[in-house]
């Protein structure tokens, strides 16, 4: 073994070192690739069916091709959760914090890697879904063009929704630390919450993640609630609202991560 103590390179560990560590961690798990592949395949598969059963390519057609993105939302939420909770379950978190005791920097690196992977996956799923839906349209129905108003925005923003949802999961993972409990909360807030809150108060519905993805981000034109005075959030406000969800979870997660013993 070499002599030690005199071999310290200049500088110190930086964000980029930690981002590299987190990327290696994420990519070295088979479950990551499996989950992302299912997310893309499922949303594109649903879009194939949507296209073949559509009688028009106007109106809600574009947002209908993107309806499978909700599966991606659910799955990417669990990828975010697991990026944190699997470290606590396995004990890796203590190896991680021993390697990099600045915990908030570790969390930021995780957020950057998970957020970027979610964004790429989301865009791949959204574009594939749109083209899959167009591909199976019946003979004689012209597929919408990306250049038509709102089409490209709907695809890009529906794809982008996976990033804040992944960070929402990551933040909740840091708060809760237990995989099953954290996934239950993510699914509860993103999906099941609407069947309770959504029925109670129509005014709250536009702010629930599931409706933001399906009615705000995926829509080519602003939509209003049926029979009600209020409308769904606009596409950009919807994305902003998802970012708020992610920010709240991440800030709470960061506070707890910094204070609690690992």
């Amino acid at each position: 073994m070499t002599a030690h103590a005199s071999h310290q390179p200049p500088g110190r560990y930086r964000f980029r070192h930690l981002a590299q560590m987190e990327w290696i961690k994420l990519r070295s798990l088979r479950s990551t690739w499996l989950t992302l592949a299912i997310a893309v395949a499922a949303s594109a598969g649903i879009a194939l069916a949507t296209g073949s059963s559509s009688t028009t390519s106007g109106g809600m057609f574009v947002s209908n091709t993107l309806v499978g993105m909700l599966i991606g939302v659910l799955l990417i939420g669990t990828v975010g959760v697991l990026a944190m909770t699997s470290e606590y379950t396995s004990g890796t978190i203590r190896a991680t914090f021993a390697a990099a005791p600045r915990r908030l920097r570790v969390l930021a690196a995780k957020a950057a890697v998970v957020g970027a992977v979610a964004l790429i996956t989301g865009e791949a799923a959204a574009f594939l879904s749109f083209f899959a839906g167009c591909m199976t349209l019946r003979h004689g129905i012209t597929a919408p063009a990306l250049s038509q108003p709102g089409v490209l925005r709907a695809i890009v923003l529906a794809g982008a929704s996976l990033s804040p949802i992944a960070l929402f999961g990551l933040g909740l993972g840091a708060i809760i630390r237990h995989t099953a409990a954290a996934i239950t909360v993510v699914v509860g807030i993103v999906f099941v919450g609407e069947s309770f809150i959504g029925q109670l108060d129509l005014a709250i519905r536009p702010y629930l993640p599931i409706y933001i993805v399906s009615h705000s981000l995926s829509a080519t034109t602003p939509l209003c609630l049926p029979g009600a005075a209020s409308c769904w959030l606009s596409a950009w406000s919807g994305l902003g609202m998802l970012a708020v969800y992610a920010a709240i979870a991440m800030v709470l997660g960061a506070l707890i991560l910094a204070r609690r013993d690992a």
Partner: protein
Amino acid sequence: MIEVRGLTKRYGSAVAVDRLSFDVPPGAVTGFLGLNGSGKSTTMRMILGLDAPDAGHARIGGEAYRQLRWPLREAGALLESRAFHPGRSARAHLTAMAASNSISQSRVAEVLEIVGLESAAGKRAGKFSLGMAQRLGIAAALLGDPAVLLLDEPMNGLDPEGIRWIRGLLRSLAAEGRAVLVSSHLISEMALMADRLVVIGQGRLLADTTAAELSSRAPSLEEAFLQLAGDSAQYQARNMS
């Protein structure tokens, strides 16, 4: 060099570590001896900045752990036998850890060789036996070629050959001038391995001495240790009644 000064940790009204002070000097194996639950692991976690002390502090090479520029290159630690994701290969786990401190891929190969895991490096670590898991943990501790090593019960799960291997490894690491802190409840093993002994009970320092001095207090090191630990347990019982 590790310096521990007045380190204290409470969980509610229970005191896990009580105003503990000791040094781990370079060039020696320091045995950290205590019965189960005496506060050894909590102390090690506090030295590594994983648990926040209620009072006191620990320094590595004169600095708080959180201030270290390249933590893995200054201190290597084995805290639990399975501190890795079961779905990740040994090589991937070490490569990820190495990246955090800008340690080269060739060093990853080197530590895999040192611990004898080259052939199993590509396998999912969840399938490892306890002995292999322990070797992976030791490889992770050696990654940064650090001047300070902290190992919590490294002999757990190793067969006699493995125990002899780690004894030799730790002795040679100390001979190279490193500060090595090894916790164990195996007294006889400590007699063979450690130059110095830090004995604790109920989180308090009971002895900070050499193995030779402690064994001279009784017919055997084991008896000397049990006397110390037993006195401390009785003290605790008196206090509670």
